[in-house]
């Protein structure tokens, strides 16, 4: 198993931390992982993306131009990365602020309305966990017990009290994921 993922959105949306939690969960499940951020002006706002690879074998390139999955959180990222999903691959996006929706017919496309759901629940912080839940419901590449361990590893100890709520947000994401284009 090798899953090559790009996560892209605005800086501050939790793009890097979502990737980190996924990577840590992979480590906990004894997988090979790599987490490669775009860095630079993105570190101080602007668009941000991270390539996460989870595999049973030693990972070759940590940077890629084609992905099994793209998790997309804003319009710029959708414009940039829709074409990079491998045919038959997966695109998950938050429809908030999206005016030009994805059009490809050769990939699986799902929506997770994470922004709306998070504000409905009154905590924007869990937005990225809702999105992650949506992804995991389609591709359960790591088991939920390892997600919990991954959260423990990647969150600073002072935030460990928030782990149950993070896990709950993941479950909510699994419930609200909505198919847009599903290949037969």
């Amino acid at each position: 198993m090798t899953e090559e993922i790009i996560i892209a959105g605005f800086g501050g949306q939790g793009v890097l931390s979502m990737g980190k939690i996924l990577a840590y969960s992979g480590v906990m499940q004894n997988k090979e992982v790599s987490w490669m951020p775009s860095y630079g002006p993105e570190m101080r706002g602007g668009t941000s993306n991270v390539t996460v690879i989870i595999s049973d074998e030693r990972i070759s390139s940590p940077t890629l131009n084609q992905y099994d999955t793209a998790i997309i959180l804003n319009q710029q990222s959708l414009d940039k990365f829709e074409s990079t999903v491998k045919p038959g691959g997966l695109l998950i996006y938050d429809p908030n602020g999206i005016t030009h929706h994805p059009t490809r017919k050769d990939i699986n496309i799902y929506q997770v309305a994470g922004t709306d759901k998070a504000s409905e629940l009154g905590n924007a912080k869990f937005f990225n966990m809702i999105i992650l839940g949506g992804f995991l419901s389609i591709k359960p590449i790591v088991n939920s017990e390892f997600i919990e361990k991954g959260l423990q590893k990647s969150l600073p100890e002072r935030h460990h009290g928030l782990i149950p709520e993070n896990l709950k947000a993941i479950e909510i994401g699994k419930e609200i994921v909505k198919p847009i284009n599903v290949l037969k």
Partner: protein
Amino acid sequence: MKELKLMKGNEAIAEGAIRCGVDGYFGYPITPQSEVLEHLMAEKPYEKTGMVVLQAESEVASINMVYGGAALGKKVMTSSSSPGVSLMQEGISYMAGAELPGLVVNVVRGGPGLGTIQPSQADYFQTVKGGGHGDYRLITLAPAFVQEMYDFVELAFELSFKYRNPAMILSDGVIGQVMEKVEVDDYKPRWTNEYIRENFPWAMTGKTPDRPHVIVTSLQLEAAKQEAVNLRLQAKYKVIEENEVRYEKTMCDDAEYLIVAYGSSARISQKAIELAREQGIKVGLLRPITLWPFPSKAINEMSKNLKGILSVEMSAGQMVEDVRLAVGDNVPVEHFGRFGGIIPSPSEVVEAIKEKIMK
């Protein structure tokens, strides 16, 4: 006992330094390697192993702090990225001239000038062909994995002390920023002052009546003496070239074509050869782990059975010159690279194989 951690390449450099018993780190922040100093400061190694960590006023000061520490027989290091390493060249040359061990880590970014903060491999010439003034060489290790960032700190010091010669870890923004699994060791104790005094008679440990005073210098005013110094250095470099070449071969047994690439380019190229082999192209990868000494012999041996070689680098074509020197007329050697901070994609490398060496 081994412990598994997920960390950035830059953090692995810092962690490797603390755990292998480095005595001192002196550095100055610059993207994309600032996590080295940040991680060191956060880890408080002065409480764990007694390691000294200091943020210097410049890269010029950093390398000269390393020079001062190295003169004491201490394991000392610095790290920076391209513009900062340019500033360090004077000190590196002095250390090579005074035959001091020490480690410089370069997490390379695109140049020239202030350039870009994105990854590059355009400091190859600077590292293996000189950089500073005079005839000298740097033992150069090129990590391609975060684990190697960690492991090569200890290896660099081992080689550096063995040959009394500064060493360089030549990395880049990709390997510095990527997070991967790393197996870390227990904390090794630092060398005691007594150990240093007994084992390194060249080191400044305080002049006791039983020995003449130690002088650490790279100055010889008489030309004949300075030529003798150079001849000694060249003899040492020859020994290093004979004994310390390191490289890794992947899918080379049946290869008709070969990619030579180091660091992150080797990772990208590995993906490329996987893709190429799906298309029936028999291509292998030779990854130099030491850039100096360069695996010329291994490449020359292989070249006799090949149809073509592609050197893949994030530069305008620097290492390709060493590959050509190694291969001679045996087989055509071409270069493929992106530069200025652009990372080539694996499929671009596959296209380059087809266009440049298969036609």
